[in-house]
């Protein structure tokens, strides 16, 4: 079985965001780029599925971006992915355009199972997997915390408000991974050495229409530092009074 994993590269979550001079993107100075945390769960699940299905299964990792993304693809190879593909694009793309590039590539590779992270921690839309599924005409289960594949059949659990939905569907399908699905493996030394030798296939990303125009990027209004009401429980009645009378939230 051919399995695809869509990955993206994002600023480290500890990054303090500074707005770039164009006011439409962040200032990249000093920003460390990492593999999107949710994509690590996607890679792990793809590798586990490959091990389980066996045969001549292959795991492809695919990303859309510039040359810097090779670092992230190399990390996925070091974890155990078989092939990496970089769909080169440097311009501004929205989720729809990225999903289009990914789905075209997945189609030409003939992958029938696709894993994505449930969202990337930069633009946070959380929709790329669903878009890819819809574009390919595949079934989709998003925000998955438990995944079972039995032949053609998928039984997955997805996280929703107040609990989990058990979802049944069939291949071909896209699954988006939520934290809790698995424990991503560390790259072994052997994996790291092997990844260094692999080539990352580069192709131009097909340029599709971009519907989203970013007008402005700005920081949220900073909060005024509040009042410290005290250092022990004697401050509690005053806190409750303020919550009730001033904030009116209880």
């Amino acid at each position, binding site marked *: 079985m051919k399995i695809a994993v869509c990955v993206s590269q994002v600023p480290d979550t500890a990054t303090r965001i500074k707005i770039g001079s164009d006011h439409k993107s962040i200032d990249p100075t000093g920003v460390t780029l990492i593999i999107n945390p949710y994509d690590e769960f996607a890679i792990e699940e793809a590798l586990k599925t490959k091990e389980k299905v066996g045969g001549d299964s292959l795991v492809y990792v695919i990303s859309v971006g510039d040359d810097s993304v090779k670092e992230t693809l190399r990390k996925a190879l070091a974890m155990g992915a078989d092939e990496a593909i970089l769909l080169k694009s440097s311009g501004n793309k929205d989720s729809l355009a990225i999903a289009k590039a990914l789905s075209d590539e997945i189609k030409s590779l003939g992958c029938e199972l696709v894993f994505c992270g449930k969202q990337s921690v930069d633009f946070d839309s959380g929709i790329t997997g669903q878009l890819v599924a819809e*574009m390919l005409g595949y079934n989709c289960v998003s925000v998955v915390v438990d995944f079972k594949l039995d032949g053609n059949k998928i039984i997955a659990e997805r996280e929703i408000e107040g*609990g989990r939905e*058990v979802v049944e569907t069939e291949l071909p399908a896209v699954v988006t991974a939520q934290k809790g699905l698995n424990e991503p493996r560390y790259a072994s030394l052997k994996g790291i050495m092997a990844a260094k030798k692999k080539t990352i296939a580069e192709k131009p990303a097909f340029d599709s229409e971009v519907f989203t125009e970013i007008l402005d990027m700005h920081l949220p209004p900073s909060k005024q530092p509040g009042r410290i009401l005290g250092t*022990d429980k004697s*401050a509690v009645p005053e*806190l409750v009074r303020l919550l009730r009378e001033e904030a009116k939230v209880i």
Partner: protein
Amino acid sequence: MAEKILAVLEQREGNLKRVSFEAASVAVSLASQLGFEAEAVVVGSEINNLNELSKYGISKLTHLKNELLENYSPSAYSEMIALFANESGAKILIFPNTAMGVDLAPRVSVKLNAGIAMDCMKLEVKDNDIIATRPVYAGKSLIDVKLKSGVKIFTIRPNVFRPQPVDSATVQVEIKQVENPNLKTKVTAFKKSEGKIDVAEADIIVSGGRGMKGPENFHLIEELAEVLGAAVGASRAVVDAGWRPHREQVGQTGKTVSPSLYIACGISGAIQHLAGMSSSKYIVAINKDKDAPIFNVADYGIAGDVFEILPALTEEIKKLKS
């Protein structure tokens, strides 16, 4: 005929959710500014509280009905909503940014070739167009975006747009029986998390961090949450240590939340955590270290011992409620 804006409502277990009224209100408000008509659509089997929608000024609600659609089916719901939006000629669709909305809206966007902006916190009409403000980097930054497509989809963050009741409005409810829904993907069961309010939906959240010292002390958080009718939240450190389940995690790799009140207990305020909760309306911090970054975003703070303050706070609120 005026152009249409369509609120896509969400029901669970046969009841419209609160966020559905928020979506309806947003649709009504945008429609009046744009000279559009606001309509609503909902998919499901029996739905009990459809008439409650009349309070919010929507003129027409269509219930796409089939007994097989009691539970969510992404394949069926997305097909039916896209078909209905097409037939009714809707130019703008508003979805709640809930687990269901986030699953559904992108699929509908592909079917309608519509641009999409998720998790909007503000929708402003300017020059006859909509400017959406949405958080990125878990709320560390905001972007204003405009969609350039013919049909546009926006999802709204729960708890941010308050439903606005309108005087003496009526809603015309039309029930459309749907045949042969596409059930290629379907929900076969729901496993409820035990008696808990979900952080993503809660109006009040009581959250615990590393300062709680161990999972055995979280009963103090739960007791306060109980008297407040609040959800229990947790910091990443606590979730990674296995003290609390991931569904309670607030922050950049957990949930970004906007409740009315967020009470942070023993949380120092890592940047990832602050990103996820700083759009809360009011923030209370209880932490021993008066220099902890959490106090920079808190409206009210007590720089003391959580083990002393939490029980006192629970008692004080109990007194107030009795």
